[in-house]
């Protein structure tokens, strides 16, 4: 197995991909949208490159963070397999979906008494599957409206952070190549887990790519892959927005966030360079 590197915006390096594909390549698997920094991969272009070099190579994409956020058409993307996950579209945990193009044979990896007909070992989690269907239905009845709404919330949150908080780094792309519900920002001189706890004490639930939250010494590999230094990754916060958030929620988050970052920076043993320049 080889890994294809990404550029500083988190987009797969197509030149290297082209070099890596050969007659022995069985499978290429690329996330359609990265769950941490929201980069939308040029999957149609990737499929074209792969199939031109080796038409036998199968292409799989993990579209869990793309589904219900960007239009997905498996023919258009040129993929052979695609996976989705229930909990990524505001449904409960415990179900997923795998699209397999006609003609592609997939062998089950877990065998059991009940798995003679399907790829799944046991009995299906019916409530979760029904919830999955309903959640998708709720998005697709007015998809464009919801996407636009969530994007507006995200843009307000992004602009508010950039306007009101100094010394921040936006991780990943801005604009159309970023999925609408994702915002990932590093707040310098503070540690991410402290921010998540501070915000959760105020009813705001976010996650961080800091090493503390992953319980290992290394911070988020996705942030390191786009060239962030360890201390920048430690201060990263991932915000996810949905149609259930309101503009008031965003304003409240901005207010609490600004206070929290200011407070934690006062405690921090690393002081902003700007402050040093003053003295």
């Amino acid at each position, binding site marked *: 197995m080889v890994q294809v590197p990404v550029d500083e915006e988190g987009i797969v390096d197509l030149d290297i991909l082209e070099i890596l594909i050969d007659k022995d390549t069985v499978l290429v698997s690329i996330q359609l949208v990265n769950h941490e920094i929201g980069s939308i991969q040029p999957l149609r272009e990737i499929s074209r490159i792969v199939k031109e070099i080796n038409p036998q190579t199968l292409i799989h994409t993990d579209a869990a963070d793309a589904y219900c956020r960007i239009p997905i058409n498996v023919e258009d993307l040129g993929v052979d397999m695609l996976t989705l996950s229930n909990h990524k579209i505001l449904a409960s945990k415990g179900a997923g979906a795998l699209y397999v193009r006609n003609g592609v044979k997939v062998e089950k990896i877990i065998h059991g008494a009940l798995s003679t007909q399907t790829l799944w070992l046991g009995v299906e989690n019916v409530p979760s599957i029904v919830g999955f269907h309903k959640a998708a239905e709720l998005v697709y009845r007015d998809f464009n409206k919801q996407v636009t709404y969530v994007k507006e919330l995200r843009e307000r949150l992004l602009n508010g952070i950039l306007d009101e908080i100094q010394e921040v780094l936006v991780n990943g792309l801005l604009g159309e190549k970023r999925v609408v519900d994702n915002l990932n920002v590093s707040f310098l001189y503070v*540690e991410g887990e402290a921010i998540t706890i501070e915000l959760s004490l105020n009813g705001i639930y976010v996650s961080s790519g*800091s090493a503390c939250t992953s319980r290992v010494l290394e911070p988020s590999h996705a942030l390191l892959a786009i060239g962030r230094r*360890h201390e920048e990754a430690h201060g990263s916060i991932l915000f996810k927005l949905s149609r259930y958030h309101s503009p008031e929620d965003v304003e409240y988050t901005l207010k609490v966030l600004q206070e929290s970052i200011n407070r934690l920076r*006062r*405690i921090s043993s*690393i002081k902003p360079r700007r402050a040093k320049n003053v003295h």
Partner: protein
Amino acid sequence: MSTRIPLPHSHKIIELFRNPKNMGYMDDASVKAIAGSPACGDMIAIYLKIDDGKETVVRASFESYGCAANIATASILTEMIKGLSLEEAWNISWKNVSDELGGLPSIKYHCGILAVGALRRAIREYYKSREVKSKWLPEKLTREELQALGEERIVELMYKRMGSE
């Protein structure tokens, strides 16, 4: 203040995270020491004001770049050592600090170790700067000091590897 997410921290840790005591830079510190590094995601600075004649801690303060447990640990340690002789302060272990906080979660033990490591570095540095040899100060680095050093070295190594790729 409440959260719907169950946190593995004691009430006291959250309280000290929210309202840390002895926080901030000390202008007239007799000595300062740092343990950890920004790249580790954990860095504690300890400042001590020491009565040179009595060799006691008059005041202590801290700065912390780290998680909630890190901030709480540094804060409680500066409280615990106030008024103690340097020898008594030296003998405080990370376990004492953890007990005082109502128990650190196991994944946060290193926060206690780092705070004690920073304090011991400061005490060592104090004697070194005064060129005084203390009877009780061990020559060899203690476990807490070694742990802080280890964490710093691992990150240094990781950076070197990243640079050489």
